[in-house]
């Protein structure tokens, strides 16, 4: 299991006995709906994923159980990695677009004053 031996594991993998690599519950510490729901959306957009969902185990525990089940024996780590990459790229695009438009808006505001 990942994260073993460390003081504070950030990510753990939990698998049922005899289950294959395609059915995994990831325990993400210090996360909530913010990452949980957006990552779930990105992973559900992947056609190789049969099921993806998450729960907050208890309101006073700051961790989420993030479940992924894949089709055709693909290890569940793959869609997780792809989902994180996709989400990162989406944010990058949103950031670039937002900054460009804000700069345009600021320039547009300055011009009429001149």
């Amino acid at each position, binding site marked *: 299991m*990942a994260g073993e031996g460390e003081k504070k594991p950030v990510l753990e993998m939990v698998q049922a006995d005899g289950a294959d690599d395609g059915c995994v519950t990831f325990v993400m510490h210090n996360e909530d709906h*913010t990452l949980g729901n957006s990552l779930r959306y990105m992973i559900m*957009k992947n056609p190789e994923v049969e099921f993806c969902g998450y729960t907050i185990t208890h309101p006073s525990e700051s961790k989420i159980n993030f479940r992924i089940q894949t089709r055709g024996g693909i290890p569940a780590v793959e869609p997780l990695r792809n989902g994180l990459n996709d*989400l990162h790229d989406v944010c990058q695009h949103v950031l670039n*677009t937002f900054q460009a438009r804000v700069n345009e808006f600021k320039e547009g505001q300055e011009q009429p004053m001149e």
Partner: protein
Amino acid sequence: MAAPMSNVEEIRSRVILGEFGVKNVHTTDFPGNYPGFDDTWDMKRFQKNFRVDVVHLDENSMEFDMVGIDAAIANAFRRILLAEVPTMAIEKVFIYNNTSIVQDEVLAHRLGLIPIKADPRLFEFKNTGEESAEEEASEIDTIQLQLKIKCSRNPRASKDSSDPRELYLNHMVYSKDIEWVPIGNQADVFADSCIRPVHDDILIAQLRPGQELDIIMHCVKGLGKDHAKFSPVATASYRLLPEITLLETVEGEKAERLKRCFSRGVIDLEDAHGKKVAKVVNSRLDTCSREVLRHSDLKNCVKLGRVRDHFIFTVESTGILPPDVLVTEAIKVLMAKCQSFLSEMNSVDME
């Protein structure tokens, strides 16, 4: 606006406001849900459809449209703005003297909530785990502030005056009385961006002659999810763009009534052959009150919906950082979350 839309397309892209409830709330455009639609994630398609329009921007608030993104991600940005963009706030209050009627703990709480104008990006988080550095305040993670004030009688007050403003000096303690005490090289580093409370006119306590306050405060970097005083926004919210479709022509008295069912500026009356005909001019202004659905003769003339992927964000800053900077910081926080899990997966080889 009244372009006909196939039922499937409507379920996918609109939230329908009905008389007794809201329909099609959830995102359903996932692969395999709709035959004939390719819902697999496509970065190119996203980049083509995504757009941001800034509607309003000033030093304290902004409104912008974010179009072509799912609620899951838009909501992540909103949640991060509220709770996970760091700011500096007063965390430790050392009360050397407090003879005012405000109790120490109440005073400490009031001080904690004062927004401090200091760029949190220039500071580090304070390590709480290390016992050795427990009380040590260093220049990279702490701002030191001082509040030292004493109330006295005004010798120049007229004898028969009963106005406390005239009778006493320093009887109102405002946030402007808080002074910054630089630690280490802070005086040079932050020379041009003087650290102080955002607002000068926050009333902290009222004193009477002889009462005094002598307080040292330590500000640290923190997150809104730890305490609301660290939240960088007064409010951050979004709403979906309302869409009002007239299914048939509405004329005369009915048109007048239809107009009054919506917010001002949503419906306009146009003259056609001597009759007044209702027309939707700006559905964005509507509050989606659904008042029109209470009129039995009007409710079948209109269709009320909201565009599922058109988010109208409103961000109001507390004044510590400009709102556009807050949004960019929020996006960076989500990117950092992704990055931290990716590096975690790479470093710890998951079997």
